[in-house]
């Protein structure tokens, strides 16, 4: 009797039948995950492993690959152009992340403290609109508006008494423009994340603080910001991972220029792989990029324990 179970119908199941049912369930399980598993194997696991392997080879796509060990990586460490793109990418990640996350948090706190519902909805929608537009379209549009002599932006700046800015033609400004465009496109996304975090803060906390006579600033620094740290933590991780893979806006707007001022790692990787057919070298860049992202994420998670406030 111990080895049997009773079904809802009251039928007694022997161990043999249980095994048969378990087998059927397992078969069904494999059947249902089959499409996902197959795709995972063909388009992720096998490519990832061979991508890792490829970084150890010298291969031009057409002739036999030649095993070179870690030579690609030591070459990367000496490659001035690669180091330049790495620096560009890191700086972009730093500025775009702080712009997106910082401004997103600021805007979210502002929107959240407005009392009028219709205005809240309007603002949330307005800031989020650019997120649904493709980066290519955004970049093309800004390329037009930011022209130096005939662009709309410079016209209005000159009316304000500011000199025309070489938005895309000077190295320093091209980089800043790319960051600004990235913030324009993504800030609404982070605003949403922070708005969700703000809504999760129980209103009793604010009521209690009011009873204790806490002012606006104290409520902001002692309740709102500490309780937003999980959203902040999450946003920082997401933003950094995305920023390190940036490609499209530079590809469309500046093609890496002027000079190499806006060339990123992925842009160089793309050129090495599909322009010069240095497949092994490009693969080693991807692998290095992966380890950088991994290291940054792990570091953030480690440091997160110290400053993220978990309820």
């Amino acid at each position, binding site marked *: 009797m111990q080895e049997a179970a009773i079904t809802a119908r009251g039928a007694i199941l022997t161990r043999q039948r249980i095994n048969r049912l378990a087998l059927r369930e*397992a078969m069904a399980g494999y059947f249902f995950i089959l499409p996902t598993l197959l795709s995972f194997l063909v388009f992720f696991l096998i490519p990832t492993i061979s991508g890792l392997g490829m970084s150890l080879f010298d291969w031009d796509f057409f002739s036999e690959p030649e095993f070179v060990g870690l030579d690609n990586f030591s070459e990367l460490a000496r490659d001035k152009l690669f180091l330049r793109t790495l620096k560009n990418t890191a700086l972009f990640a730093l500025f775009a992340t702080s712009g997106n996350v910082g401004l997103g948090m600021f805007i979210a706190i502002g929107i959240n403290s407005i009392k009028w519902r219709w205005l809240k909805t309007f603002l*949330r929608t307005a800031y989020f609109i650019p997120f649904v537009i493709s980066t290519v379209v955004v970049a093309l549009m800004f390329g037009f508006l930011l022209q130096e002599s005939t662009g709309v932006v410079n016209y209005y700046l000159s009316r304000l008494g500011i000199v025309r800015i070489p938005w895309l033609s000077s190295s320093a400004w091209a980089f800043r423009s790319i960051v600004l465009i990235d913030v324009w496109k993504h800030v609404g996304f982070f605003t949403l994340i922070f708005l969700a975090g703000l809504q999760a803060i129980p209103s009793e906390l604010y009521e209690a603080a009011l009873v204790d006579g806490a002012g606006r600033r104290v409520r902001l620094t002692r309740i709102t910001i500490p309780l937003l740290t999980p959203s902040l933590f999450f946003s920082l991780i*997401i933003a950094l991972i995305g920023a390190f893979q940036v*490609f*499209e806006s530079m590809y469309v707007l500046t093609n890496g220029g002027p000079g190499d001022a806006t060339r990123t790692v992925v842009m160089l990787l793309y050129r090495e792989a599909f322009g010069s057919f240095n497949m092994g070298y490009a693969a080693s860049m991807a692998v290095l*990029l992966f380890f950088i992202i991994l290291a940054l994420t792990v570091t953030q998670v480690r440091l997160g324990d110290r400053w993220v406030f978990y309820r």
Partner: protein
Amino acid sequence: MISAASTSQSHLFQPLDPFRDKLRHQWRAWLANAVLALPLILGSLLMFAPLIWAVSFSFGQPHEFFKLPPPVIPSSFRLDNYHGVFERVDFLRFFLNSVVVTGCVTAAQLITCSMGGYAFARLRFPGRRIIFILFLASMMVPQHVTLIPVFIIIRGLGLYNNLGALIVPYATSVFGTFLLKQFFETIPDELEDAAKIDGAGFLQIYWRVMLPLAGPPLATLAILTFNSSWNNFFWPLIFINSAEKMTLPLGMIYLRGQDGVTNSGVLMAAIVLNLVPVLIFFMIFQRRLVEGVTLSGLKGA
């Protein structure tokens, strides 16, 4: 004297004129709101301004481009620039390609992700946990690591320069599987047991019990997938090399490369043609899109 004393007392303990005081209080709250809202409203204008200018310039004539101040409302609504787009490229083809790719990817993900989510949430099979952990870990790896091998696989499958190259690798997603697993785990066992008693197999439980309940997460997944597939640029850039197979984002770059298009009204017209369907999509699904993004925190990659 007495009256003065009583007045000051009443001032201390209760409002002189409750109605006026309330009004003043409301006025203050209104003002605080307005002061707070003003910079946010100005900021939101910055979000709209580029779109408005794009629309304005798309109707403008070439000589207006150098007219200062640039007109916010064009002097005439001429469609020359729009004709220019269709003269230079097969824009409709780009659009249809985008529709086909995005439609197939979204439909495929709804099926595969709900199947996978159901299995991971409700079925027991050896290796379930480890497979799921591997799935999750894969979300951390940037797609560029897999780029070259996937390129070789796609060529091997004969999908190079074929819309299939943009569909097959995206036919399922770890994120979607995860989203639906989370949802299916919340469905009470009783529903499934009742179906089992009625003699339903797993396929019937999935189809008749689970899917009809999964409307909201499926809608979220559909909208997020639609958006990221519609805007995908990197993949087409690598796998598509002939104009008749291009999707909209790649087609835009192709159009820019045509004679006399760079930074012209024609390009703006094409941008507007891109914006219109996206903004309609946004209007219709705004609420669910916002919900989905908040829920998932997914950066549309």
